């Protein structure tokens, strides 16, 4: 018997195609060629001063967080840290546009977005410290685990948003990915699923110019990454990723669009990674100081500071208060990260399956014996550590 026979292919007659409606006007889907900007333009006057100040405080705190985390790698307290210095406006805006019931799907570079969303700074770093893969309960914070395999979190965001909609919850998922990640198959599959399902998802691409060492020009031949949206049937927006107000506005619009049932949006944020890919990378091998310097003049904190002081919303004293708060956060983080996390090797077996298999039970017993041979009855060593 052939597969076709088994599958009863004979009984299957293709039905005539349903009336297929081509998009009569793709123009609304196409991104503007110029990245959207607010700061330094007339549009800035319309932005709520409280929001600007909130963004400012978060940017300063985020910059300090990045610096502190990078310092912790030098002290051996973090195994690795992919800094988002220079990209704080994207990170902070992504966190602030979401309601409590919404979900954030961060990549490995987006610790800051998780922290800006309210996650405990230490819990957010356990992956990078190396004691836990995910040091928090994703459901409690509605933050998916920081995702290391590129773009694989994007279909999760689609599935979750789709499930929420099926349940009648007006929940939105915001998923973050880098420019390099847009070349991965999962990126394309996620966008296509989201558009077909009209899932309430916002895709945020942080185009920081490089995927480790590979510049955007070697990543894509598209006019912009935002253009990719059009082929899937969703709008693409290009935005200045260092302009916190523009980021907030564009993402907030995309979130509102998703929430009202109009489907997904792809947002490309043009930004720049000021630090190396991670502390382990040598960025001088693939880019010159002049390029980095040019971007320094377009720093997200600088842009917002200029706006705030220009409008008399921020003075030296106010800025000082913000910096002090950031300093306190950093000191607190340093203190907490200076303590060795308590670890129980027996935890290795705790969360592989709901019930450990017989095979795992045997291995668990072996490790317990080894630990007891080393330290005496198991438990004493970890009690001390606590």
């Amino acid at each position, binding site marked *: 018997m052939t597969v076709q026979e088994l599958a009863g292919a004979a009984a299957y007659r293709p039905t005539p195609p349903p009336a297929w409606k081509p998009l009569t006007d793709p123009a609304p889907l196409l991104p503007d060629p110029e990245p959207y900007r607010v700061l330094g333009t007339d549009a800035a006057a319309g932005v709520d001063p409280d929001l600007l100040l909130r963004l400012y405080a978060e940017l300063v705190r985020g910059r300090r967080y990045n610096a502190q985390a990078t310092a912790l790698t030098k002290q051996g307290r973090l195994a690795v840290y992919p800094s988002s210095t220079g990209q704080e406006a994207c990170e902070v805006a992504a966190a602030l546009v979401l309601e409590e019931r919404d979900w954030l799907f961060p990549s490995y570079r987006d610790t800051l977005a998780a922290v800006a969303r309210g996650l405990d700074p230490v819990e957010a770093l356990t992956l990078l410290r190396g004691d836990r893969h995910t040091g928090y309960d994703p459901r409690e914070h509605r933050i998916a685990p920081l995702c290391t395999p590129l773009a694989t979190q994007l*279909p999760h965001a689609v599935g979750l948003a789709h499930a929420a909609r099926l349940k009648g919850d007006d929940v939105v998922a915001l998923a973050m990915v880098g420019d390099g990640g847009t070349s991965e198959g999962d990126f394309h599959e996620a966008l296509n699923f989201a558009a077909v399902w009209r899932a309430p998802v916002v895709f945020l691409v942080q185009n920081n110019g490089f995927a480790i060492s590979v510049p955007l020009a070697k990543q894509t031949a598209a006019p912009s990454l935002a253009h990719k949206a059009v082929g899937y049937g969703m709008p693409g927006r290009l935005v200045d990723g260092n302009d916190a107000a523009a980021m907030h506005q564009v993402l907030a619009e995309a979130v509102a669009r998703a929430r009202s049932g109009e489907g997904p949006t792809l947002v490309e944020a043009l930004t720049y990674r000021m630090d190396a890919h991670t502390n382990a990378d040598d960025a001088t091998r693939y880019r010159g100081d002049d390029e980095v310097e040019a971007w320094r003049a377009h720093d997200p904190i600088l842009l917002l500071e200029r706006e705030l002081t220009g409008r008399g919303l921020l003075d030296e004293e106010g800025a000082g208060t913000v910096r002090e708060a950031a300093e306190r956060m950093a000191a607190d983080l340093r203190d907490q990260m200076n303590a060795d996390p308590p670890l129980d090797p027996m935890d290795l077996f705790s969360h592989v*399956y709901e019930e450990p298999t017989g095979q795992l039970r045997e291995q668990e017993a072996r490790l317990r014996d080894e630990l007891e041979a080393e330290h005496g009855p198991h438990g004493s060593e970890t009690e001390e550590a606590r």
Partner: protein
Amino acid sequence: MTTTVAATAGERTGRAVQATMAQALGRALRDAMAEDPAVHVLGEDVGTLGGVFRVTDGLAKEFGDDRCTDTPLAEAGILGAAVGMAMYGLRPVVEMQFDAFAYPAFEQLVSHVAKMRNRTMGAMPLPITVRIPYGGGIGGVEHHSDSSEAYYMATAGLHVVTPATVEDAYGLLRASIASDDPVVFLEPKRLYWAKAAWSPEAPAAVEPIGRAVVRRPGSSATLITYGPSLPVCLEAAEAATAEGWDLEVVDLRSLVPFDDETVAASVRRTGRAVVVHESPGFAGPGGEIAARITERCFHHLEAPVLRVAGFDIPYPPPMQERHHLPGVDRVLDAVARLQWEAES
């Protein structure tokens, strides 16, 4: 983990009919969906068409497109979306159309489905069932006959189960959907249309997954097998009686977790064992099973544990597959080799 559908034999009043494995699988999906609104089926052609093997036939009609969804054609996307759905409290059942077309989803399976419970310290288990038709013997052209179980078995965090009977098709699928852990549910293609008397109104109690079963008691050697190779082994056992061999046949049903107790108890009793499967032998399931038996039953063994497996070749073209698939003769040859004498 355990669901009881219609518990005791006394309640099993339904009239037995001739049912195929495909029908039993479909019935399991239907019952699970009817019982729990969180159960969603998604995949390629699962809706209107009812799946290329018709396992999901009627589900879209009964439960609607939102519960039985024809997805875009993208396996990673399907499984990735299922991850997100499970994160939000649903219990997705994903259909992969064929064994070799599940590979695009391998990354999602290994990096996320298998690991989410562990990554989140138990906070976020993923109750996803991934149904994959597998194996050969149906004259499929290339990429339609792979036995991919070894890949899944080697991935910690997944359960891997495979039914060989109509009754188990129902029971194991219900148990898989009820499991809070992800299950790779391998459906032996060539048994889809195998029929047996089965009572869909009153299916047997659903056991937790992880237990092997002795399909045929015997005393001279144990054949250990699963899925598509079970009928081959049962036939071989019948044929072997002519040679005076009384073979026991163990159907594993679950490859992960592996039922060491049932297997070891059988081999200790018989002193001889042959592992039979159609996936390639090298680094295949048989190697693991033989090693486990040797570790547990060394002093009871009268002969080395033998393996009868598919050759270590990409699955052959349909006109050649009979040379590749372990058949009754190859199993009997192995049994003959169990009359082993040490070469001094």
